């Protein structure tokens, strides 16, 4: 399998550097909390629904607690303490939220016996949420056993993005029938900057459909139907990203989503979300994903839409190594790491296809047990849809030749519109042709020893190690501030959502994290 003749010592060194660069960020994440982490805890504990304006009760409750006692203790203790004081059973947390919103409950940080009692009830309530997630995971395992996994690798991953869950559903089912193994429902623009998760079924997204618990449920049910029909378990993907990353992860676990876009830096770079906020949220959400058996998809592909795919190829490698470290630290197994990369080299560059093969193989050989997520060309797609379909075909071929795990199907209309029904059909036909006609070509693909492809891969690895050395010296936060990734400069003290971050007080208590880390 090893086609690149990589130096194992260099590979080890790269991993070690990533660990050293990442550890301070983990320490940061372990010592901070965010409003969304706390809301996720309450969701696990059973708070559901939203007020008449559509603001979820978890938001109202957390806001009420923060108003009175701040965020730094975590909300579990104040909330369960208040619950006890109000004489409400653990199942009535939502009622408590309603009362809190009406201003009729007071919060404080309990101590002593009250604290011990609150802690116990809180653990039990969030534990029930985690058990619900465990049940969904077991259910997934059963369904996979019953219906089976896709016959081929890579898995074929398709997006739907109409903005209307009721248009999305038939389109997703049609795509599954035409061969999609994974359906991703793209989110509306703007959702990631909402500091709450919308409620209910939705029909009004822009260039994507709102991620809501109800939409998750509707789509998962529709795809369960398709799985039954097709005798193949069709996976569902959404985004644990943006200001509500931990809650999205939780809802995904509760509604048996199968994969989630979840990157350690995407929100920082592409949504201008505060770095600390992101790293804290990210760690919690990954712990939940680990528990839920969800495969994460990281976002290195995005860097190549703003930075050049040849010049900055090594930044993708560096980020993959960091994502891997953060993921392992949060408890994810290798099979859950859909590390991202992409076919984004300018097609006018001489030997661009061989360069793509070199980069794709490098990722493959650095992360042999991870189901890499291989993203199609987007940046160099144009309104010339005929050329676009051709480029997508070569993308598919590179994916097949280098053993990628998850193939995100490219659309010929990438530069024009969010995908039409017919675009998806044409794109799947493209994938089917390439996998059918050349699926075995990897057997005959042997990069010439010391040749173009091996040289390129080794060069990118060397550049990655050099960059990691610099990051390890300067700190990762500094590197991000300087525009190392995707040439986006994001200082640690700027960006959205910083107000929702707090350093743990000594008595900080989070029953979910405790349970997640105990397991």
């Amino acid at each position, binding site marked *: 399998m090893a086609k690149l003749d990589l130096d194992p010592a260099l590979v080890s060194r790269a991993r070690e550097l990533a660990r050293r660069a990442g550890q301070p960020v983990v320490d940061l994440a372990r010592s901070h909390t965010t409003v969304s982490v706390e809301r996720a805890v309450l969701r696990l504990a059973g708070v559901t629904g939203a007020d008449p304006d559509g603001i979820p009760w978890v938001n109202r409750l957390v806001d009420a607690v923060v108003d009175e006692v701040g965020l730094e203790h975590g909300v579990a203790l104040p909330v369960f303490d208040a619950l006890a004081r109000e004489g409400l059973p653990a199942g009535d947390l939502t009622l408590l939220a309603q009362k809190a919103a009406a201003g009729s409950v007071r919060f404080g940080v309990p101590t002593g016996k009250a604290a011990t009692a609150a802690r116990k009830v809180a653990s039990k309530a969030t534990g029930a949420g985690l058990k619900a997630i465990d049940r969904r995971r077991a259910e997934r395992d059963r369904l996979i056993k019953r219906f089976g996994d896709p016959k081929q690798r890579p898995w074929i991953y398709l997006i739907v*993005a*109409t903005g*209307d869950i009721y*248009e999305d559903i038939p*389109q997703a089912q049609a795509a599954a029938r035409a061969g999609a193994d994974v359906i991703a429902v793209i989110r509306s623009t703007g959702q990631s900057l909402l500091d709450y998760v919308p409620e209910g079924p939705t029909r009004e997204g822009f260039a994507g459909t709102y991620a809501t618990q109800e939409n998750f449920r509707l789509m998962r049910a529709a795809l369960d139907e398709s799985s039954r029909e097709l005798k193949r378990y069709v996976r569902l993907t959404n985004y644990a990203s943006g200001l509500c990353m931990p809650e999205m992860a939780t809802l995904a676990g509760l509604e048996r989503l199968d994969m989630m876009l979840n990157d350690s830096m995407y929100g920082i770079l592409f949504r201008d979300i505060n770095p600390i906020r992101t790293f804290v949220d990210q760690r919690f959400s990954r712990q939940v994903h680990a528990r839920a058996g969800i495969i994460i998809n990281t976002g290195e592909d995005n860097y190549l839409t703003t930075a050049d795919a040849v010049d900055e190829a090594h930044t993708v490698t560096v980020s993959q190594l960091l994502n891997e470290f953060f993921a392992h630290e949060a408890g994810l197994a290798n099979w859950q790491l859909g590390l991202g990369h992409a076919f984004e080299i300018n097609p006018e560059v001489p030997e661009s296809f061989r360069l793509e093969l070199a980069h794709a193989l490098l990722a493959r050989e650095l992360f042999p047990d991870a189901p890499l997520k291989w993203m199609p060309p987007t940046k160099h797609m*144009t*309104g*010339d*849809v005929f050329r676009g379909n051709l480029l997508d075909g070569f993308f598919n071929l590179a994916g097949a030749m280098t053993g990628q795990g998850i193939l995100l199907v490219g659309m010929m*209309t990438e*530069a*024009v*519109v*969010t*995908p*039409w*029904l017919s675009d998806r059909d044409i794109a799947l036909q493209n994938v089917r042709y390439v996998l059918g006609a050349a699926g075995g070509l990897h057997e005959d693909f042997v990069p010439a020893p010391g040749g173009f492809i091996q040289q390129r891969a080794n060069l990118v690895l060397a550049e990655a190690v050099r960059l990691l050395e610099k990051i390890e010296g300067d700190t990762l936060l500094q590197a991000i501030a300087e525009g190392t990734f995707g040439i986006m400069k994001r200082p640690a003290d700027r960006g959205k959502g910083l107000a929702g971050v707090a350093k743990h007080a000594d008595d900080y208590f989070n029953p979910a994290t405790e349970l997640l880390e105990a397991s």
Partner: protein
Amino acid sequence: MSDIVRPYGDTTGDGMVQLSFTLPIAHDKRAEGAALQLAGKMGMDPAMLVHAKQMGDGFTFFVVYGRVNHLVDTSKVEVVERDFPLLSAKEVNALVKRGLRRKLSVVGACIGTDAHTVGIDAILNVKGIAGEKGLEYYRELKVTNLGAQVTVPELVAAAQRERADAVLVSQVVTQRDAHLHNTREMSAAFREALPADKRPLLVVGGPRFDESMAGELGVDRIFGRGTTPGEVASYLVHELVQP
């Protein structure tokens, strides 16, 4: 359900279509405007010009996406629906034997300068197509396949010689409407050579015919893309054999 539908991009009723064409003008802003003018005349509004590329000196290729305002009324669609029952080879043979008491004579050819015989061979040769055997396989049909580049006079003579009940003509080349010219010439020749009651059934086929043009071209029936031998045999029985 309503009979009125509109093109579908990704939402019911959005009316979205894709269009491409070349204009014989160099690429500049005016050319792009000209392309949008054409899209507008075709009923696209709004029209997005998403690609323009000059070719050579004085031509530009355009790709346009957008909404068309036309409604499609499916109740007004005119199609040549199959108006005869689809029979098995066995049934065809039995009906011919009973109804005609002799073999039904079929003469086939690819006329004019057209040399594409794969289509007519698919209908006539035993080998057939799409898992169906061709007409030669039918015991009660007598098939004479004249092959390619047959002139109209040769065809008429062969039809007379073979006492053809039906003449099957294939036309694949369509540039400059070659298929239409040749078909008209053929039907006129049969009209001239034979009185109406002696004239064989005239059938043409090929991938680019409009099946509703039979009357206009002076033939009895047109078969298009994806025709199978069984359909043709069933049609011949329907037209030529008294039940």
